[in-house]
């Protein structure tokens, strides 16, 4: 009997928001006539721009050099001519310089046969450099020394997101190869692929061969199942679950998107210039899972997906819990855009804010066992120290409490503010 790991406490069952999107195969989005490639990717440090206006760039050419020893590089996602270099707003409100490339010229890779390169002989340090060079920005890959658990996170715990699920179904061979590369770099004692609880048949019937299961038997890859509950796919929660099995806490959690990017960087020597993402929400006519070039403006994706069915109230980059809203549809896709959601008023359920009615639901759903209502009231009255004493710092800002709150109290923002002011008060 297979064991299903559960979230120790709290959490929300929301997998129904994924069901309609799960079975949509990954399709290639049209190439953008204009790509806007941000120099800040995945929240890493800004890369140094290497091109000027008027320069001709090739597909996959280095256009931004990462700072520092392992700084991740930025590549041109399409061939063409640099038309502009200007500041753009990123989801979440920060501003980054970006290179605007107009499509034109020859493709070096598109449509050509990809020849896998041998990597087994390379030392781990060269692999690390290769990965950073190709623009994979996950800093945890740069670690040195032994690791007890490598957890491959095959769950997108937020509702709507399912591009990684599609990768797992459609490209298991690439994922397995990617895991092998990571095993070589990180030398973990155990490798665990964490998947959402589903029936074995579902996976083996949908996944193209070789399936992860048959391979896991021969290799040192273990498969673990977890329940479908948000936020079990958070690295923090997975670490907590697997830490209890082993006293060691030397655990690394890596997402499937990164595994796939590592595979492409090492085996295909292909820079990180495209990713799969989910287009969802009730406002879009044809939701789906798309393979999109980095820098594609979101407005192009709207056209790709048949335009709007209803006017969206919010456009969100990322999942509905931790994703950020955007106000301009020209905002480009970045390496961390796991989804673009076009949400209608009915999906958002904004409603009016009322006073707290002490229903206790926030306590019930908090995966950290906190009392968000009380913490918020403390912070609201400026009692930061009391909030900190109530383990405010354990809050991971998963948003379960704010989602469930019938009074629509901005608990996540309140607790964030409390952490900021509380730490400030302690430090002075």
């Amino acid at each position: 009997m297979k064991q299903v790991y559960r979230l120790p406490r709290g959490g929300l069952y929301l997998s129904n928001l994924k069901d309609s999107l799960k079975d949509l195969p990954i399709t290639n989005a049209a190439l953008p006539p204009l790509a806007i490639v941000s120099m800040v990717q995945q929240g890493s440090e800004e890369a140094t721009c290497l091109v000027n206006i008027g320069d001709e760039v090739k597909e996959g050419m280095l256009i931004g050099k990462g700072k520092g020893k392992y700084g991740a590089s930025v590549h041109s996602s399409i061939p063409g001519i640099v038309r502009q270099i200007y500041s753009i707003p990123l989801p979440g409100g920060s501003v980054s310089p970006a290179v605007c490339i107009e499509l034109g010229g020859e493709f070096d890779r598109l449509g050509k046969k990809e020849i896998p390169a041998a990597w087994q002989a390379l030392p781990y340090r060269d692999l690390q450099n290769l990965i950073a060079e190709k623009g994979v920005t996950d800093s945890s890959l740069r670690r040195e020394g032994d690791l007890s658990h490598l957890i491959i996170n095959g769950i997108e715990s937020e509702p709507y997101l399912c591009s990684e699920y599609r990768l797992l179904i459609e490209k298991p061979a690439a994922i397995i190869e990617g895991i092998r590369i990571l095993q070589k770099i990180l030398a973990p004692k155990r490798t665990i692929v964490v998947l959402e609880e589903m029936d074995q048949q579902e996976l083996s019937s949908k996944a193209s061969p070789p399936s992860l299961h048959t391979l896991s038997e021969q290799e040192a890859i273990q498969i673990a199942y977890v329940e479908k509950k948000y936020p079990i796919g958070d690295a923090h929660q997975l670490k907590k679950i697997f830490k209890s099995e082993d006293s060691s806490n030397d655990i690394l959690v890596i997402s499937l998107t990164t595994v796939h990017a590592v595979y492409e960087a090492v085996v295909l020597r292909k820079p990180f210039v495209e990713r799969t993402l989910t287009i969802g929400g009730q406002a879009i006519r044809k939701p789906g899972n798309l393979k999109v070039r980095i820098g594609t403006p979101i407005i192009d994706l709207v056209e790709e997906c048949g335009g709007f069915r209803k006017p969206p109230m919010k456009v969100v980059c990322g999942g509905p819990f931790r994703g950020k809203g955007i106000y301009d549809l020209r905002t480009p896709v970045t390496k961390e855009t796991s989804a673009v959601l076009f949400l209608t008023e009915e999906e958002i359920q904004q409603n009016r804010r009322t006073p707290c009615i002490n229903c206790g639901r926030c306590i019930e759903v908090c995966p950290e066992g906190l009392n968000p209502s009380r913490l918020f009231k403390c912070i609201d009255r400026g009692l930061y120290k009391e909030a900190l004493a109530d383990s405010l710092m354990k809050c991971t800002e998963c948003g379960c409490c704010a989602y469930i709150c019938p009074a629509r109290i901005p608990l996540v923002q309140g607790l964030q503010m409390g952490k900021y002011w509380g730490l400030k008060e302690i430090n002075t």
Partner: protein
Amino acid sequence: MKESENTFIITGTPQIYTQSSTARMLWSVCIWLLPATGWGIFLYGGGAIRILLVSIGAAIAIEGVVGLIRKEFTLYDGSACLTGLLIGLMLPPTVPLFIPFFAVFFALIVVKWSFGGLGKNWMNPAVAGWAFVSLSFPDQFRLWLYPSFFKGVDLVTSSTPLIVVKRNLLLGISQGSTPMELLMQTAFPRSLWDGAWTEWVNTKLLSLLGIVLPPGYIDFFFGFTPGAIGETSAFLLLLGTIALIGKGILPWQVPLSVCSVFGVLVYIFGGLPYGLGLGQGDVLFHLMSGGFLLGAFYIGTDLVTSPLTKAGLYIYGVGIGVLTFLIRILGAAPEGMGYAILFMNVFVPLINKYCTSNSKLLR
């Protein structure tokens, strides 16, 4: 690009919320109280309508005036309307119209708004308002009505079953008979249907189990007894509660613990005042009388004045059950539910203190 067509809102995380909201929850409770309200109006006619109109109207007016003074519109959240409705349902159908007004005034002004409005009151406003008028004007609470279609008689003043039983107990009339037998002995009127339905239940359903239902309980279950406007029909109250608990609006922990603790205590000790032995208490009679179900289902479950966690809700429910038993069976007051809730309201902060994350004692 037609930019003017696309204006999106930007908010903090999370980007989506659950369907339920404060207003939706409170209005749902109001709506699921309507069957019991309708039953009260059907039984008592114009008198009930006038009392309900005054209590709900006063609640809306007072909340509106407070809103004007505080410059915030709070009527949409449904809490004032629910308080008004509950107070109306807890009153006898004969009270003069200043009673509901006073009760609502006390509930909203003294209990709710003087502490800062919805969510900040530490006592249930509806029960507090009811307790205020029932203690201030006890004479107005002595007049109850037989519903119009009792055997031939038309709206005759009477007493509630619990008051009759209590009075007889105090007079020492009833040795060795259950409360229901006591009612029968004192010629408490029964509806035209009770006999036939009891027989049907006995022959068709209970005969399979070898149990016999004595007469009288069918009246209690469907609400053919004198009592407050909305408290008599166990059936309709149960219907609304099942709907509300099913939708996840009311916590089921309170009704469960109140009813089971009270039921067990009544079963074991409830027979003693009647000269019966241990384990001879009449559970059904006590569960379906004296506003017990209205209190356990709709008032004890009030989110604002009940504890935050599941463990807390159980403790709170057990407390209400025990206190109701003590007041009703051992004390002089016939009903006890309202006072038990008020009493436990006072302990909610203490319960919360030991049941939330601060202390790992009762998580």
